[in-house]
């Protein structure tokens, strides 16, 4: 966990209480015996066994010693023993728990079984048992508690290390030939240290409580030494006469145990609070509705779309996009180019923290932002279908496929469950799922990857969509299945004369299916062109490099592939000029200073570049 996250957690109310408490306990443990040990051990028979008074706030014990001083001085022994017990318990338990991850096979199974067995025993019984064997006294109590809590550490470390055991970095280290001890100390432990540390802190509190319990039973600290448990034991005899005598050590035990437990919780909270927080902090401005009349017969018309997140990220910057009825438009770009966010903004599927502004946003002739929530839902539900990259996550694993596909009609067209199912079967058949009737009764996990994607497409078709948004629909699929799904998408759009947006990182895939291609880089549209121009030679250097860097069946094996040096800017970077300039071989001063506008090269070709690749160069390439 980062130090900033800990600092943030400590500033919360619980964090302040816990850290002040912990600091107090530590200071007391160090200072109290130095200052008050004289007062705590001064015997005063004349004032023995007294209740609280102005001289002795918590009264005196059987030898007339002041109980308040004794409680304060006992802090050191109580806390030190508790820390010791927790530390020994962790030192025994954690390595044992890591054994299955390092050895595997029979040894691993044996150790796992033993841990399960040990966890089943009641901890306090084990502690009492071990403490009595080793011998009454502080040593026995500490070892007893250490042995009792070790199985819990072992179990935790086993669970945590098993996730590391499956990691590729452990496999890589094994392959290099790193020895087991080093695997444990350098690869397994550092990656599970965080939760273990938290548990250790919490378990100090537990150990404090258990030690007090053992001392109370007379198995722990023996006179003349004393800890809180011992004092509680001594005070209990007088609980009906002077309850404050027992109350002092009791309160100390409670506060001590609570402090460690609370501090552990604070650490856990700091560890659990991950990056998402940054998005939510700050003000959440609502979407800006700008005036823009929706006319024309475009299925989708977006102008100057900008998406920003609180915290300064602007992943999409003044994007304009137009989709005519029946047209298949491709959006190409690498990860972080804003291609998915652009489409999700259209489908009203952005996270709540996103701020969308656009000069014009028209979907099927109306501005979804001007509609009420229910109107918007109806418009999107009936006319828009979304196909995602991972079909498994788009399907509910607990629902039969037929029911799931039919649900769209039930909700948006209000037809009966039975009619919806029949329609679902018919749609499944239309996406070429064999024996659709039987398949509709199956669950998503019984489908192959390709069939799942077909089912998702069938789901989208239930509502006769006018626009299909397919976001990397074939990336998670095998190459042979990829072609089938692409063909299906094309057939579906043609037969229903619906439009489609195909989002992909693969220029080749897009070029096969689309008529028009939009190339995005760092949140901006850098080029927009028809497929023929894309194949003949694009004008923007980024598009040129993107096309050239993909190996094809015709690439010359003797020559290196074209590559793009450097890395793309992040959504946080505010670049005044062309975002591609730092990686561009043609970049000039102007490119770095001034953002080039999308300039018309031909009726179907626009590019945002000050130095576009011209026709003669294309021929040379």
């Amino acid at each position, binding site marked *: 966990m980062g130090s900033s996250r800990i600092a943030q957690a400590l500033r919360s109310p619980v964090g302040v209480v816990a850290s002040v408490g912990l600091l107090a306990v530590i200071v007391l443990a160090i200072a109290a015996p130095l200052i008050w040990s004289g007062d705590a051990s001064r015997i005063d028979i004349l004032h023995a066994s007294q209740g609280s008074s102005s001289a002795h706030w918590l009264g005196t014990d059987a030898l007339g010693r002041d109980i308040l001083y004794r409680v304060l001085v006992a802090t050191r022994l109580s806390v030190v023993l508790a820390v010791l017990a927790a530390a020994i318990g962790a030192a025994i338990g954690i390595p044992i728990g890591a054994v299955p991850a390092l050895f595997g096979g029979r040894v691993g199974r044996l150790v796992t079984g033993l841990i399960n067995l040990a966890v089943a025993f009641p901890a306090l019984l084990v502690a009492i048992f071990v403490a009595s064997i080793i011998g009454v006294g502080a040593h026995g109590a500490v070892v007893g508690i250490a042995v009792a809590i070790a199985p819990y550490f072992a179990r935790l470390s086993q669970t945590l290390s098993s996730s590391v055991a499956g990691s590729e970095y452990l*496999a890589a280290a094994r392959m290099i*030939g790193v020895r087991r001890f080093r695997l444990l100390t350098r690869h397994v432990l550092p990656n599970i240290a965080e939760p273990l540390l938290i548990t250790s802190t919490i378990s100090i509190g537990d150990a404090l409580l258990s030690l007090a319990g053992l001392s109370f039973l007379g198995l722990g600290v023996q006179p003349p030494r004393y800890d809180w448990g011992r004092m509680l034991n001594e005070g209990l005899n007088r609980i009906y006469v002077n309850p404050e005598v027992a109350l002092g050590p009791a309160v100390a035990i409670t506060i001590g145990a609570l402090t460690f437990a609370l501090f552990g919780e604070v650490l856990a909270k700091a560890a659990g609070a991950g990056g998402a927080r940054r998005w939510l902090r700050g003000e959440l401005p609502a979407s800006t509705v700008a005036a823009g009349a929706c006319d024309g017969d475009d299925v989708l018309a977006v102008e100057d779309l900008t998406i920003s997140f609180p915290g300064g990220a602007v992943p999409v910057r003044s994007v304009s996009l137009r989709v005519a009825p029946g047209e298949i438009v491709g959006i190409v770009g690498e990860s972080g180019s804003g291609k998915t966010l652009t489409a999700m903004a259209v489908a009203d599927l952005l996270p709540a923290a996103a701020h969308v502004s656009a000069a014009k946003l028209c979907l099927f002739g109306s501005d979804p932002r001007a509609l009420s929530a229910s109107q918007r839902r109806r418009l999107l539900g009936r006319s828009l279908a979304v196909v995602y990259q991972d079909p498994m996550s788009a399907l509910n694993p607990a629902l039969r496929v037929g029911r799931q596909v039919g649900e769209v009609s039930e909700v948006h067209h209000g037809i009966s469950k039975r009619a919806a199912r029949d329609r679902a079967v018919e749609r499944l058949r239309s996406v070429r799922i064999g024996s659709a009737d039987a398949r509709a009764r199956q669950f998503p996990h019984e489908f192959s990857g390709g069939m799942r994607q077909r089912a998702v497409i069938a789901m989208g078709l239930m509502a006769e969509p006018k626009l299909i948004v397919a976001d990397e629909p074939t990336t998670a699929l095998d190459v*042979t299945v*990829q072609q089938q799904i692409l063909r299906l998408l094309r057939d579906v759009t043609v037969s229903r004369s619906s439009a489609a947006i195909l989002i992909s990182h693969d220029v080749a895939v897009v070029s096969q299916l689309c008529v028009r291609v939009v190339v995005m880089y760092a949140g901006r549209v850098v080029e927009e062109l028809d497929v023929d121009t894309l194949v003949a030679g694009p004008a923007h250097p980024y598009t040129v490099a993107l096309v050239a860097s993909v190996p094809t*069946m015709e690439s010359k094996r003797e020559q290196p592939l074209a590559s793009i040096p450097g890395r793309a800017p992040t959504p946080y970077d505010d670049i005044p000029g062309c975002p591609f300039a730092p990686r561009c071989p043609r970049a000039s001063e102007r490119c770095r200073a001034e953002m080039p506008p999308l300039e018309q090269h031909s009726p179907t070709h626009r590019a945002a570049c000050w130095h576009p690749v011209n026709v003669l160069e294309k021929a040379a390439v």
Partner: protein
Amino acid sequence: MTALEARSVTVGFGRGRRRLVAVDCVDVALPEASTLGIVGESGSGKSTLARALVGLVPLASGDVLLDGEQLRTARDGRVLDPRRRVQMIFQDPFASLNPRMSVGEAIREALTVRGGSGRGTRAAEVARYLDLVHLDPEVAQRMPSRLSGGQRQRVAIARALAARPEVLIADEITSSLDVSVQSAVLNLMRELRRELGISMIFVSHNLATVRYLSDEIAVMYLGRVVEVGPAECVVSAPQHPYTRALLYAVPSFGGSVLADVELGEPPDPHDPPAGCPFHPCCPVGPHARPERTACIECDPRDGADQRPHRAFCHFATAVADQRAEETAHAARDR
């Protein structure tokens, strides 16, 4: 001279009815200073084979030979190579680097295990390996979380090289990278092969990438190598119908999606079909031509040694003929 050879390597998982034979009696040989491409789809066993060759997955049976010398196996069936002469680079550079270890430490670890160099020279060695993969020496101080995907993959390559392997296995090393970074990593692999003379096995689902880097190509389907041969020959004259399906499936830039081979649903790997496991999906098999009963009845592995490209197909030469026929057709149509 062969650098690495797998003889009848079989890898299985689970027992009884859940038994899955991921790699089924595979023979492949990697000649010295050359590159063998292994291509196949998910579930074809290509990654399992790669993992078995470096000793991460136990063999059920079979032998692995390094420099013509048979490697011992541990009691559980893992291949043992005390000198770690075979190294692998993993697909996902976000998972294959320890997040709590700086780049320098990760590379140093590989150097230490190999031994032989003093503490002082190690820093220089780390810098040298970083330089080899075109990274700045100051990257050594950074944690993996501060690097981009492409940089991480370079670090993973440097770490594998630091163990001074004779054979490098690259398992889908570009598929989790962005397009613009992929080509740089592929170029790097080419360069390393030329400069260091390392033999490589390049595993990928992408036939175009495999073809670009490999001297030989082995095509895997359902745990078997169904065709193997020189890269250009496999690509230009595929013998197995599955290889042809893969070839058709490579999206061609500006081409159409009309190239039509419907393979149907892949078979259940727990219960592979009898005879040729590809027959239920085969476009030239018994479904298209009922007279080809051999596909259902006989195992095409018999007699494969006599066929071109050692193809596991009863009608391998016929496939080649048919392709010639098709090309002639296409030419006439034009």
